């Protein structure tokens, strides 16, 4: 199959991109607003074409542990869920990180806490970027803002996961998962053969070692000195990722008097608010972190250098704002505007929120 232009939902794009990337296995459990990922995979029946395994597990916990198993074999594996389901997966995610294994986890966030609502939210930022599971680990966190990025980040996510032997989370939300827009699907790529996996993933447990020492993958190390060494190795990987993989998008940051910071679908709504502000003569810029970990501290510091204020817009009570404050420092006021519980904000509301926090902006 060649590259193809289609109109589809972000969730559907994830499923199609997974098949075309040559994913070996998807393990999931349905939950709104991301069930189309599993549904689309079931409808496409890739097990008949590429041989990809698509399995509806008995629970989220089972699904993430199937990912853990598949990843241990060097297979390209993934799972997806929404906020409450992602909470259930956290133990497995910590094990995958500690096992230094590649995997893709998609979280199409909905309003929480608890079972919450089925409507869009961004309230799992802390969970995704600061841990979630136990231990000193990091996920690489990609935040898509378009249906195209939901497709693209399947491939990017798995490439990064294999490059660094580290799990990657695609932190999407109900807006970008449920909306439809134009998407260019990547050309079909064959799944890797067992020989290719043996060559590219010498750490994988592939059975029949034939001359090589058996690989043992475990996250248990009762000797603390050895466990500290393991942690040091993990930290080296994280420093490498921080040095190489920061991604962000900037809009009108060259001359901005005020800077907005937003991720995912909210960044697009902010973009419209920014355009409206500029029409009113207020020089607003926007920066959208694409990787939430590693976070673009330097880019935000640089973009805010001459700003009179920074507005962090999120569908939560103020989570990313902590990283924005770390980036900007104490000399420039950093304010939060957001909605919670599944309410999606519109461009006018953002602009009103901006003028409320920075009333002097109107007088310029």
């Amino acid at each position, binding site marked *: 199959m060649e590259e193809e232009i289609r109109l589809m939902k972000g969730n559907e794009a994830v499923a199609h991109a997974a098949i075309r990337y040559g994913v070996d296995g998807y393990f999931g459990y349905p939950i709104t607003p991301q069930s189309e990922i599993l549904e689309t995979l079931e409808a496409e029946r890739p097990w008949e074409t590429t041989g990809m395994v698509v399995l509806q597990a008995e629970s989220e916990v089972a699904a993430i542990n199937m990912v853990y198993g598949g990843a241990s074999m060097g297979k390209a594996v993934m799972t997806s869920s929404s906020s409450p389901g992602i909470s259930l997966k956290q133990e497995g995610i910590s094990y995958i990180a500690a096992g230094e294994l590649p995997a893709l986890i998609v979280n199409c966030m909905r309003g929480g806490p608890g079972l919450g609502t089925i409507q869009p939210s961004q309230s799992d930022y802390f969970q995704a970027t600061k841990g979630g599971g136990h231990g000193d680990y990091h996920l690489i966190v990609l935040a898509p803002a378009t249906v195209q990025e939901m497709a693209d980040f399947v491939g990017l996510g798995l490439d990064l996961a294999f490059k660094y032997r580290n799990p990657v989370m695609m932190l999407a939300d109900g807006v970008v998962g449920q909306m439809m827009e134009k998407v260019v699907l990547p050309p079909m790529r064959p799944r890797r053969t067992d020989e290719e996996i043996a060559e590219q993933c010498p750490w994988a447990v592939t059975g029949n070692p034939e001359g090589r020492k058996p690989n043992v993958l475990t996250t248990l190390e009762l000797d603390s000195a050895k466990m500290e060494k393991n942690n040091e190795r993990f930290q080296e990987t994280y420093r490498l990722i921080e040095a190489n993989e920061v991604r962000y998008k900037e809009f009108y940051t060259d001359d901005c008097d005020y800077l907005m910071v937003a991720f995912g679908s909210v960044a*697009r709504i902010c973009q*419209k608010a920014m355009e409206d502000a500029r029409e009113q003569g207020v020089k607003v810029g926007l920066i959208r972190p694409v990787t939430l970990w590693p976070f673009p501290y330097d880019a935000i510091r640089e973009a805010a250098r001459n700003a009179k204020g920074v507005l962090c817009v999120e569908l939560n009570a103020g989570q990313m704002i902590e990283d924005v404050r770390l980036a900007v420092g104490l000399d420039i006021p950093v304010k939060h505007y957001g909605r919670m519980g599944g309410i999606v904000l*519109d461009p006018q509301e953002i602009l009103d929120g901006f003028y409320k926090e920075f009333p002097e902006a109107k007088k310029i």
Partner: protein
Amino acid sequence: MKEEIIIAGFGGQGVLSMGKILAYAGLMDGLEVTWMPSYGPEQRGGTANVTVVLSDREISSPVLNTFDTAVILNQQSLDKFEPKVKPGGTLIYDPYGIHRLPTRTDISIISVNAMEATLELKNSKAYNMVLLGALLKSRGLVPIDAVMKGLKKTLPERHHHLLPLNHDAILKGMELVK
């Protein structure tokens, strides 16, 4: 060219699929498109609406607070979205079940007896296509060929024998706009 459209009515009236066909038609015509639904527990019987943006440039926000055109199918949606049509914009509505008429004078208001026309066509499922016809006639936006291509893409193959029926319904809707 950029057109920001809201289509709003009861769940089950074909609001979301009308938006989907319009978005597909835009895609067939080489435009950038976004389709952003608003529904949830309300989708059965409650109100449902969808925002469709067609543009020849990249689209920023899929979520909007004002619209160039509103296609309104019930009273609640009329009350909610009449104030959100941009000055100079267009409001298309079906008077069936409407007891409080639109009052704005700075937008063009088009009343389309789509329910009546659908009953005449003896095809209740074509209701949204009649309204789509009215929208195309009053706003242009995309050629009917692109709409038919979009329909073909969105309808499962087993329903392709319904394409002529839908075509007729769109033409009927176009006739209703003078």
